[in-house]
């Protein structure tokens, strides 16, 4: 074991996680490094080093997502803002209460949920949220069936989200039901809870761009309480190809040149059609997963398989069929 590893307890634990060290070796390494640690033992689980480290990890995970430049920039801004506000508070300067409720607009499969999940992690490490978990809900989870039921159901979901993020997908549907719809009651319960539990949780409303814009414009109460708007643009063909490469790499596959060309052609053709699924990472995933199954079918009867063959996705493996892909979406 390299010496630097034994000095940093976090690295020792990583070594154990990755299977380079056994528990016995890890304990030994920790014992040698714990001399300096026993002194500050009381505060150690909350030690800035390790949460700083986890924060960096979450941020680099965010950076590894393809595209989403606007989102990344905004998260950096928020991280800096939160840090400075915390320092200001320590120095007893006036610090503003953090209002971090957000609206995410964009088509399905553009990374809204993924980003929300990472933000939960990031905010937890920064001490903004206690737990940072993501509670993903939609209209049916919030709206009840009879009078008085809605407030109760909504409150229940909010309670689950305390300390983390309440992510409401297709949030505009809470307002589209007409005069007598219970969706409105759900919105007012939510707003009340946001006032009551100011620092305890973050609400993210997500949905298609046009519908969300209309929804927010028509609700002054909501507009003023959600200061942060993030737009998730559709991915370009190049970005989709990068996503495809990343997905394949994670699964230990790769495309040959012809397959690459075919996939690219199909993605760009689809982008032109202006459907909801164009520019959508989920579409790429479905095509790739289908290709992997078709490759398996092509290879299953062969007697001798090389490593190379098992990894390679060929042109004929990529089939693009509207219906088949959409059904899995």
């Amino acid at each position, binding site marked *: 074991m390299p010496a630097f590893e034994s000095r940093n*307890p976090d690295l*020792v*634990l*990583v070594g*154990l*996680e*990755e*299977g*380079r*060290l*056994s*528990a*016995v070796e*890890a*304990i*030994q390494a*920790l*014992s040698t490094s*714990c001399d300096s*640690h*026993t002194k500050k*033992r009381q505060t*150690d*689980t*909350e030690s800035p080093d*390790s949460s700083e480290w*986890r924060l960096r990890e979450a941020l680099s995970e965010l950076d590894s997502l393809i595209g989403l430049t606007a989102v990344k920039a905004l998260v950096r801004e928020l991280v800096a803002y939160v840090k400075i506000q915390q320092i200001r508070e320590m120095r007893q300067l006036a610090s503003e209460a953090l209002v971090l409720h957000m609206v995410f607009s964009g088509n399905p499969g553009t990374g809204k949920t993924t980003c929300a999940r990472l933000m939960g*992690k990031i905010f*937890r490490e920064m001490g903004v949220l206690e*737990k*940072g*978990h993501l509670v993903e809900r939609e209209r049916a989870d919030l709206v009840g069936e009879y009078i008085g039921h809605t407030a109760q159901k909504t409150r229940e979901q909010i309670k689950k989200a305390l300390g983390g993020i309440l992510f409401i997908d297709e949030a505009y549907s809470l307002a589209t039901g007409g005069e007598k719809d219970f969706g409105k009651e759900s919105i007012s319960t939510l707003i009340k809870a946001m006032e009551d539990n100011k620092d305890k949780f973050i609400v993210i409303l997500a949905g298609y761009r046009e519908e969300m814009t209309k929804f927010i414009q028509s609700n002054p109460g909501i507009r003023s309480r959600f200061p942060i708007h993030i737009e998730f643009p559709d991915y370009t063909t190049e970005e989709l190809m990068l996503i495809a490469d990343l997905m394949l790499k994670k699964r230990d596959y790769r495309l040959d040149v012809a397959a690459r060309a075919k996939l690219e052609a199909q993605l760009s053709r689809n982008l032109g059609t202006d459907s909801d699924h164009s520019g959508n990472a989920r579409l790429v995933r479905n095509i790739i997963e289908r290709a992997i199954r078709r490759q398996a079918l092509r290879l299953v009867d062969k007697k001798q398989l090389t490593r190379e063959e098992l990894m390679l996705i060929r042109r004929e493996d990529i089939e693009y069929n509207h219906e088949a892909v959409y059904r899995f979406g």
Partner: protein
Amino acid sequence: MKRCIVLGKPNVGKTLLVLGLADYMKVKDVDITFQDPGGARYSRKYPVDVAMRELVGALPHQTKCLQSFSLEFRVGKGKKAVELIDTCGLTQQIHDDPLTRKAMAQTLSAIRGAEIIIHVIDAHFLGSVDVLSDPTEVDLDMQLAAFAGPRGGYCIVANKMDLPGANRGLARIRRLFTGYKVLPVSAATREGFKEVKRHVLRNL
């Protein structure tokens, strides 16, 4: 709130000890928080007997994340809550499953924040193997004691005292771990829980 962590090898009875203590203290429901290595948390309220049925098992590595709940102890006229943390068992060899390895790393990192450390050793098992001439079986326990022992609030619980051969195991534990506090316990029959409770109380 002070934290009390329970550690040891897999299948020595850590979870049963923790839940047994809740039962011994006449608690009906426990609100268990599961904290997995990724940092996600989730909590669920169980009646103690249901928790025992669902979380305790005969196979090693039933617990694969930190499972904690708080327990109130009467101190003088008031009450003090202690967070009992049940952990994933530590193995001698490098484990094949990455999730289990992560959970073990979690166990070790949780030691750092705990004020009370209960190290569980299977006395029944040690009674059946000859550890005095071949100490590889207790290598991990020895390391653990050397690591956690000086931290204060540490004690060894010799569990499974109701099973045959456990007395011999207890004698061997006392011989190997001289200088540490050793409490003979049977988590299954709740024997010796009085001493465990007293150990926790003394360190509050």
